[in-house]
């Protein structure tokens, strides 16, 4: 094994260890698990950047000219962005998902590792050092945002389900003796929330108080409003990165191909993803769109990002397809 491979193995192992620990934290809320997961997250991320730097130093070939290099950066950046948000907003509980995805993407990237291949003339430009890291970092941010949205959706639908099943109970009870129905009514009348962002899953909280361990666990997630705000903040990092990424790409295209926009599949797919996230930003200003619909938009946005990133590279040939 050469130094390169050793570093990659360390990074993947660190991500797996951190994913396991942070999943344990997600499930158990044991602080020990969180404290065990954090150093591994740092270790994996730092090792990956060292590996990318080492690769560049030893070969003098910019490592982001193929899918292997860009997937490596994608994994490293998603962990870096996650760590940034986790430190600032205590977001560690979703770390298991992010770390597991980073490990999967990095391992998948390895299958595209062809060794050291110098860049074709079109890629021999300083723009590659600006454009690719920006775009890949935006993808990474959207990945983390997608994870917070998925957690939102899990909690949201659990809340709805618990609500629905207690409605059924209420109806059954109402059909029975009047006294029992009255009692149930009282139990179900939602307590007025003290705050608008805490306690926005009253059904889960009630079920948890009633002894349901699952509901208790779900209720212990951050509030829906907080998850929504978190997603918004992460997308606020991703969208400007994608915007600058597209602009620098267009500028580069002007220099390499003579036209800054040629509607090649990658450009079109990136523009589509950009529009989805711009739509997210627009609609997030509307009360009715914050929360559930925004979460779905963020998930849809990430699906479109994955298509733009991997789908276009692997399935469709175009001006960008030499990136493989």
């Amino acid at each position, binding site marked *: 094994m050469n130094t390169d491979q050793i570093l990659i193995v360390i990074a993947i192992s660190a991500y797996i260890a951190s994913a396991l620990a942070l999943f344990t934290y997600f499930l158990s809320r044991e602080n020990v698990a969180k404290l065990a997961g954090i150093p591994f997250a740092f270790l994996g991320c730092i090792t990956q950047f060292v590996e990318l730097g080492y690769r560049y130093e030893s070969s003098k070939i910019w490592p982001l000219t193929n899918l292997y290099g860009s997937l490596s950066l994608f994994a490293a950046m998603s962990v870096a962005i996650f760590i940034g948000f986790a430190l600032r907003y205590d977001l560690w509980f979703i770390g298991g998902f992010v770390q597991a995805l980073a490990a999967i993407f990095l391992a998948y990237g390895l299958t595209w*590792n*062809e*060794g*050291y*291949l*110098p860049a*074709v*003339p*079109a890629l*021999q*430009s300083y*723009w590659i050092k600006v454009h690719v890291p920006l775009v890949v970092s935006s993808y990474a941010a959207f990945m983390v945002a997608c994870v917070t949205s998925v957690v939102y959706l899990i909690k949201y639908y659990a809340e709805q389900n618990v609500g629905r099943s207690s409605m059924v109970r209420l109806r059954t009870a109402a059909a029975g003796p009047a006294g029992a129905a009255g009692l149930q009514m009282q139990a179900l009348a939602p307590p*007025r*929330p*003290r*705050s*608008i*962002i805490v306690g926005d899953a009253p059904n889960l909280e009630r079920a948890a108080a009633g002894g349901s361990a699952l509901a208790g666990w779900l209720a212990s997630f951050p509030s829906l*409003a*907080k998850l*929504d*705000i978190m997603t*918004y903040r992460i997308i*606020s990092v991703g*969208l*400007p990165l994608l*915007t*600058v990424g597209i*602009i620098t790409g*267009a*500028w580069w295209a*002007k*220099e*390499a*191909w*003579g*036209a*800054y926009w*040629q*509607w*090649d*599949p990658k450009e*079109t797919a990136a523009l589509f993803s950009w529009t989805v996230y711009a739509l997210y*930003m627009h609609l*997030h*200003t509307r*009360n009715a769109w*914050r929360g559930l619909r925004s979460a779905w938009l963020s998930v849809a946005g990430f699906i479109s990002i994955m298509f733009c990133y991997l789908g276009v590279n692997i399935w*469709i*040939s*175009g001006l960008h397809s030499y990136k493989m």
Partner: protein
Amino acid sequence: MLRLHLDNIYHSPAYLGIIGFILACMTLATFRRVIPARLPPLRAVKIEAMPLAANLAVRGDEATIRARVEDFFVRGGWLVRKRELGGIEWTFADKFNWARKGVLIAHVGFVLIAVGTTMYWKWGFSGQTAIVAGLAQTIPETGARFQLDRFNYQIEPIRTKSGIVYQPIDYVSQLEITGHDGIKRHLTLRVNHPLDVDGTLYYQASYGSAVDFGVTKDGRPASGAPGAALLEGEGFPLGQTDRSVQYERFVGTIDRNGGVSPDPRANNPGVILTVFDGDQNIGSVLVPLGRSLDVGNGYRVDVGSYTLYSGIQYRHDPGIPLVGLGAFVLLTGLCMSFYFLPARLYVRVDPCNDSPEDRPRWSIGLAATTVKGYEIFEEQFAALVEALRHAQSGHAFQAKPSDPAFAVS
């Protein structure tokens, strides 16, 4: 290569229509929605009805309390404005008020980009040309003369995990260019380094091998042979017959078995010729250079030597500076509206009705709105109310939430 064939979209009425439509929508949206929503006038609100609201009860004289409230916000970097509305004195405190214009700025950037691309459509042009080494071409739109003195390419065999890859490393045109001033300049054109000649940019786009072809019938030169070397994709008819021959592509290396080797460098070169009978393709053959192909009826096509040619694209786009500026403005607007949370506080100071005559009590009511909803500001608001209470300390004896939806204490 899958392209969406929208290259000429800038010239289509549909494109113009869409741009016009978007601009109209944006203008409408900006004036009908964005400005009113983002830059709301200073107006009275029903504090108790607001989701983010609090009430502090304080003791002291009105002027001092008001002064303290104002001082508190000014020190916190808030823009404080006072208005008397309906006989009540309101204090409005705004944070990041300037960032409210972020959305407008982003949209201005978008308009600039649209104007810039439209300028290209109106005054710009683009095209491409292929110049065979040793020959010259004049660009019709600009009159610039390009003579290709030499063309070089470099392709390296690289061993990768899945075998040898022949990777293009560089391709370079040595040109003699004559622009408007009539001066001949010797310049080098390579990928990613366009040349600017009289405001039009020229790009190294591609290259290929031009090949000389001869035609004989029964061993004697026949009519129909092309007068100049052909570029890949070009063809010629065969004398008086219905047949024609197309020079499909150049093959750098013919391997020992007579097949096409993956090495594109010109080691043992040949060409792939396709023969047509009328419109019908009757087959393709790989012919080594210097050999000839029997195409029937006594006709033979002689494949001569090759010369490299350089594919050059050019583009004149007067809208570029505006598009660049637009991109910058768009981004500035995006950052303004994403990273700053413009919030407005509505503050009023009212006498408490239940207060004993000798000890006047006042209630400070405050409510907050932001451009991104209430939830995102709740924690900051709670901290702010705490701080305000502290600032009035010694005088605040009881904090009572004005709305059960939000508790201060």
